């Protein structure tokens, strides 16, 4: 049935083999817009900014498909030479058991084993691969929507033995390795660790009048814990209950970020795979600008809700979009090739790139192994 959609032959040869799939690893892109009226949620990366950064690092267009790994990463075998980058939740990245910095594009020799460990902070890691994961698009997107077994790799999370096709890279692979995030982004925490508390902005929801004033006040005053029974459809929120008035509300369109209050149940923060319509009162809404952060809440993390105005939501969105844009531009300027192969690490200055790129700096990570070439991009300035 629907499961066949992802199985149609792809011209791209397999480039990655799954040795261990991790907890829940799926192919995701920026989602499947335009089908909400048909009951299909947008899906796509729960942290879209992180996927876009991974794509920018490996030279892909922003909407290329990568791998989203939840809490526990995957182990993958490179079936061909690849350039990869890890973004999103903070987790160790290894190539052939050697630790590699996240947030940089890394050359991976054919035959190497790429390992993504357990998230220390945040919830979802994104592995970008130069060329993008080339599963066939379904309804305009490669994202996996598991509730309908749609898109991605056979509509399901990856399992051991899956072989993923990768598309042609945007530039010669050599030129795509060794690029790193601009410092202002690399320093940003990926999300809270379990037990940590964060604040998420939210706007008043249209159903706020369906819960008692007292319980709404408690909602804004308390920290809610992300339940382990959370997934890409939504986060279940453990905390003071919302007292919902009797009566039934007509189902209406829902956006990700909505905080629903089922009568007698835990509030639910809707995420990217959440239902397109719902009949529970929506008491508050995390704006689109902060949805990426909602996608990085691991079970056990605690959230407080900070009411914001629409104007502030506008500003936050503009800031987020501009930062992403800037990051993509500054990443593109990477002048050096940085590789980690079974033979060891090495760095080659490529000397290609514009004269205005000398200012670029790699984020504050251990960079000894390549600093023998002088300051980054020094000879370009």
């Amino acid at each position: 049935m629907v499961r066949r959609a992802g199985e149609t032959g792809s011209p791209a040869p397999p480039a990655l083999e799954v040795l261990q799939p991790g907890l829940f690893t799926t192919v995701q892109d920026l989602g499947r817009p335009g089908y909400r009226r048909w009951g299909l949620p947008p899906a796509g990366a729960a942290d879209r900014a992180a996927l876009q950064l991974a794509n920018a690092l490996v030279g892909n267009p922003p909407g290329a498909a990568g791998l989203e790994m939840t809490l526990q990463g995957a182990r993958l075998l490179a079936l061909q030479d690849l350039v990869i980058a890890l973004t999103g939740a903070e987790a160790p990245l290894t190539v052939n058991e050697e630790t590699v910095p996240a947030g940089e594009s890394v050359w991976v020799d054919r035959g190497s084993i790429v390992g993504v460990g357990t998230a220390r902070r945040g919830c979802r890691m994104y592995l970008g691969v130069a060329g993008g994961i080339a599963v066939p698009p379904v309804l305009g997107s490669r994202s996996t929507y598991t509730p309908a077994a749609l898109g991605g790799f056979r509509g399901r999370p990856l399992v051991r033995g899956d072989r993923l096709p990768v598309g042609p890279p945007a530039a010669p692979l050599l030129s795509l390795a060794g690029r790193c995030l601009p410092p202002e982004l690399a320093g940003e925490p990926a999300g809270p660790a379990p037990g940590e508390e964060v604040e998420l902005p939210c706007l008043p929801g249209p159903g706020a009048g369906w819960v008692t004033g007292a319980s709404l006040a408690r909602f804004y005053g308390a920290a809610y814990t992300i339940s382990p029974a959370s997934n890409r459809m939504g986060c279940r929120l453990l905390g003071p209950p919302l007292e919902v008035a009797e009566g039934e509300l007509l189902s209406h369109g829902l956006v990700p970020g909505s905080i629903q209050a089922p009568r007698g149940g835990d509030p639910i923060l809707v995420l990217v795979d959440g239902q397109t319509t719902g009949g529970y009162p929506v008491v508050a809404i995390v704006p689109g600008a902060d949805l990426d952060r909602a996608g990085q809440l691991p079970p056990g993390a605690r959230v407080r809700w900070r009411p914001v105005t629409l104007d502030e939501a506008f500003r936050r969105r503009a800031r987020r979009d501009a930062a992403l844009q800037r990051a993509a531009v500054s990443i593109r300027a990477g002048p050096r090739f940085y590789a980690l192969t079974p033979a060891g690490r090495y760095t080659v200055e490529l000397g290609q790139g514009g004269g205005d790129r000398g200012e670029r700096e790699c984020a504050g990570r251990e960079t000894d192994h390549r600093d023998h070439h002088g300051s980054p991009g020094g000879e370009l300035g």
Partner: protein
Amino acid sequence: MRGRAPKVAVQEASRGAAGGSPCSTLPGWRRWTLFPVPAAGPGQPEPLPGGAELFTLSEEALLVRFPGGLDGTAYTRVRALDRRLAEQRAEAVREWVPAYDSLLILHQPGAEGREPVARFLRQHLAAALDAVPDPPDPPAERIVEVPTCYGGEAGPDLPAVSALLGLSQEEVIRLHSATLYRCYLLGFMPGFPYLGPVPKALLLPRLAHPRGKVPAGSVGLAGRQTGIYPFSSPAGWHIIGRTHLRLFDPARDDPFLIHPGDRVRFVPVGPAGGEATVG
């Protein structure tokens, strides 16, 4: 199932319940049907022509809600606005989701995306509201016939439903299949149609305990709605039959068998099935 029964049994709070309405002081949908709308303020809807309301959900989403509930003209107006949006596609509008009495609009993020859409609504809503209430079906309206095998293995709840309603199984089937339903919206899962209204004689609460999985094509009944599960899924509705039709198939030219606004009729067939006709 998160979908609710399509009744607008909205609890009145402030009028009769001075002593302890749970939510008399808060803005919300409760006012949608029963109260005058106060001036727009933080978190409160902006009034639109004809008693409609405009809720700002986020920096990229608006919700238009029409008064009157399911039994009134709200859905006619949702349809009219749906068509209007399709015809005059405003550049800032990205997509929209019609429902029973509301329409969700996703627009380009930011004030520059919101303003043209809000302006569009202020200008064109009047026209949408002027749509003749309950017009004769326009000629273009599609009717989808769904061959359905009632009872037996395909409809395990039919005996219980018949007992609960005090009707014979044949009568339940006759009533359910004699009605030309409206598909108000698709939701819950891709291609799941919320159909209604169901004849009052078939009114039932949903299952107290949702059952495990029902097969794809299962026809469910709950409240004044009936629907069809496109995938094998847990179900909180009474399952009275099954169709072999695939409601959602991404490989088809038109992946969705039933569209929002379509008319739908169930046609009783034997277990062997039959073909759908879309006219």
